[in-house]
């Protein structure tokens, strides 16, 4: 009995102590941040956050790795109803429409106004902010943005008797180079890609071709996909033909193809620019980079943005929101954007960072880092087709496209039928989405 009384006393004392420290010491406001950055990116992100916490004693950003992009989004969705979600969540570009329609977030363009500040959004790189904007207003903070480009192995080009300073610029040249490579016997297969679904989106966008109606879903919810026309069929035809010739080898849906490129098994790779730092570090040959190959004689568009952006949960206290805003501003800061770019290969989001990188000779030291910028800044950006696709059930739709491509490559269906079948499945998903969102 006495023991229990003692125990109770201790319990009460501890509680008092806990409560009093909260009032006596000004605790930093905790900002939770869920992200999907693994591998070498994680280290760079963590050091940026540590620096933020050290320089901003009022706030404490606590990052939490929540798995892949898809897993992170799922966790966010399930945590939302019970209000156990984070203050900031990183979502991949395919989840953009889901987040816009979620009713769960505060668009970032509203945040400065809510805190009585004004903010110049034009300081960020425009093609990047365009992707995440609705009617010109930025909904999420661009963070890790990338685009797709061509990587090639200069040493293998020399071995095969090709000019290492003349990478292929068109798909016709991809085929010609491919045949030369195979004839030379330097490699068994010539090129592969990561993210085939996204590479397909890129192929449409750089030729200013729409993916879905309603301006790629940017002026209203899309009702159907529009890529299964002659142009789309030609893309699938070309890829299947190159595959059947042994030039193209299918390299999985994400980053599996990188290891084949790094080990010199293939001579070229079409992959996200975010793999650049990793590829340069891991490969023992001279890495060349160039623009995504074009189909000759078709209109010029632009390569589109991929990667992730940061979304802010709705209904936070003003204190928390202020911390979130400080953190978002910090990430866009020149030196931080440069640190992020150098560590990962993702675009620095701020225009000022771009100039500093140029001034300090970063690009002339390794021109490979410049390719992505030139590509994205040299294309047009006044059309929806060149800005990017925004669809509700995009995650599931992309999988339909990949399985369509896989069926075409395996010879299960003709390229045309495979693409048409994929389009049909995707249209059904769009219809369901429209039904749910009442339009």
């Amino acid at each position, binding site marked *: 009995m006495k023991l229990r009384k003692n125990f109770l006393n201790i319990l009460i004392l501890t509680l008092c102590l806990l409560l009093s420290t909260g009032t006596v010491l000004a605790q930093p406001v905790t900002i939770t941040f869920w992200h999907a950055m693994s591998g070498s990116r994680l280290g760079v992100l963590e050091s940026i956050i540590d620096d933020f916490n050290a320089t901003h004693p009022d706030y404490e950003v606590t990052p939490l790795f929540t798995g892949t992009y*898809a*897993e992170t989004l799922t966790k966010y969705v399930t945590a*939302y*109803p019970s209000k156990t979600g984070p203050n900031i969540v990183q979502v991949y570009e395919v989840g953009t429409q889901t987040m816009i329609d979620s009713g769960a977030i505060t668009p970032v363009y509203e945040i400065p106004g809510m805190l009585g500040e004004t903010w110049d959004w034009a300081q960020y790189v425009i093609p990047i902010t365009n992707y995440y904007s609705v009617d010109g207003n930025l909904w999420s903070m661009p963070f890790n943005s990338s685009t797709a480009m061509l990587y090639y192995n200069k040493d293998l080009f020399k071995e095969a008797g090709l000019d290492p300073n003349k990478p292929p610029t068109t798909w016709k040249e991809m085929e010609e180079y491919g045949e030369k490579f195979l004839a030379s016997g330097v490699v068994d297969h010539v090129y592969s890609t990561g993210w085939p679904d996204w590479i397909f989106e890129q192929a449409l966008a750089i030729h200013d071709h729409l993916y879905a109606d309603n301006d790629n879903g940017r002026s209203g919810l899309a009702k159907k996909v529009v890529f299964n026309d002659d142009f789309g069929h030609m893309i699938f035809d070309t890829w299947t033909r190159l595959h059947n010739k042994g030039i193209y080898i299918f390299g999985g849906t994400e980053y599996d193809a990188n290891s084949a490129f790094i080990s010199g098994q293939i001579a070229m790779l079409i992959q996200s620019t975010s793999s650049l730092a990793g590829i340069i570090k891991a490969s023992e040959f001279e890495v060349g980079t160039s623009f995504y190959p074009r189909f000759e004689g078709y209109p010029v568009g632009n390569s589109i943005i991929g990667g992730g952006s940061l979304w802010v949960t709705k209904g936070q206290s003003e204190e928390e929101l202020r911390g979130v805003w400080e953190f978002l501003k910090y990430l866009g800061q020149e030196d931080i954007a440069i640190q992020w770019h150098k560590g990962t290969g993702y675009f620095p989001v701020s225009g000022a960072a771009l100039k500093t990188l140029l001034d300090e000779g970063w690009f002339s030291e390794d021109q490979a880092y410049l390719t992505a910028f030139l590509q994205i800044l040299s294309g047009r950006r006044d059309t929806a087709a060149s800005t990017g696709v925004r669809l509700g059930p995009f995650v599931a739709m992309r*999988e339909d496209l*990949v399985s369509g491509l*896989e069926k075409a490559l395996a010879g299960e269906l003709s390229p045309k039928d495979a693409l048409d079948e994929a389009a049909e499945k995707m249209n059904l998903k769009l219809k369901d989405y429209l039904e749910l969102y009442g339009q």
Partner: protein
Amino acid sequence: MNEDKFPGHNFLPYLLIAPSVAVIFIFLIGPFGQSIYESFFVSTPFGTNTIYVGLRNYIRLFSSPDYLNSVTATFKFAAFVIIIGLSISLAIAQLLNQRIRGVGFYQVALIWTYAISPTIAGVIWASMFSPATGLVPYIISKLSSGYTLNWMTNGQLALFIVAVAATWKMLGYNIIFFLAGLQNVPNEFLEAARIDGASSWKAFWRITFPMLSPTTSFLLFVNILYAFFQVFGLIDIMTRGGPGNATELLVYKLYRDGFIHLNTGSASAQSFVIFFVISVVAIIQLRIVTQKAIYSR
């Protein structure tokens, strides 16, 4: 009688089992009921809108070629894992159940696959068969002067490799149980048979195999559950259901639709379908196989 065991406390027995019943209701029956309920609706990921659609989720499933493919793939996969897996395990267990030198080493070497996590097993098999850098495609390409073994574009091959990996992964578990079963078969029976002139082949089928039937039926059940439910990790690491849905087994499709595509209605309908299939299999199993098993000597 219960009243005798707890005189004067009529409700005590119920009180005592209440915690277990509560756990079962909260964690099993409740969610099960909820998922049946949700299978009649479609809803937005964040639950902002929910529409009653009746049986549409089910109709969609059975009219979707992808789902029917998934059913076929699942049964092919399960048949391979169960039939080939159990046969090989029994053969190996029989070999291990002999007096040979270093039998302990062989036993451990063949059993340890069970201790490997599905993730590691998946990574091992995936890198072994990686089209551009894997060892197996390399050897095959050298032996056949240039044939490319690419499971990332060959659905049937992918399903086969995943099934082999899953079988390999379960081998250790099956062997342990078969070995234990074999060691329980009384030697006198086998000796008597041998004296009567039975070949070892005949002795195996007439004596050992029937006496193993409790073990076999237990393993059959465990392997069915394994093939239907527990291969998730292996699939997720190795193929993610690809290429072209070829290895999208039922349980994996459910995961993708529910947790990646955030389509809870369809996923709930799928979970009910799997529940139904497994119940039928379990009932057949319990009715036929277990009744035939010889438990007494």
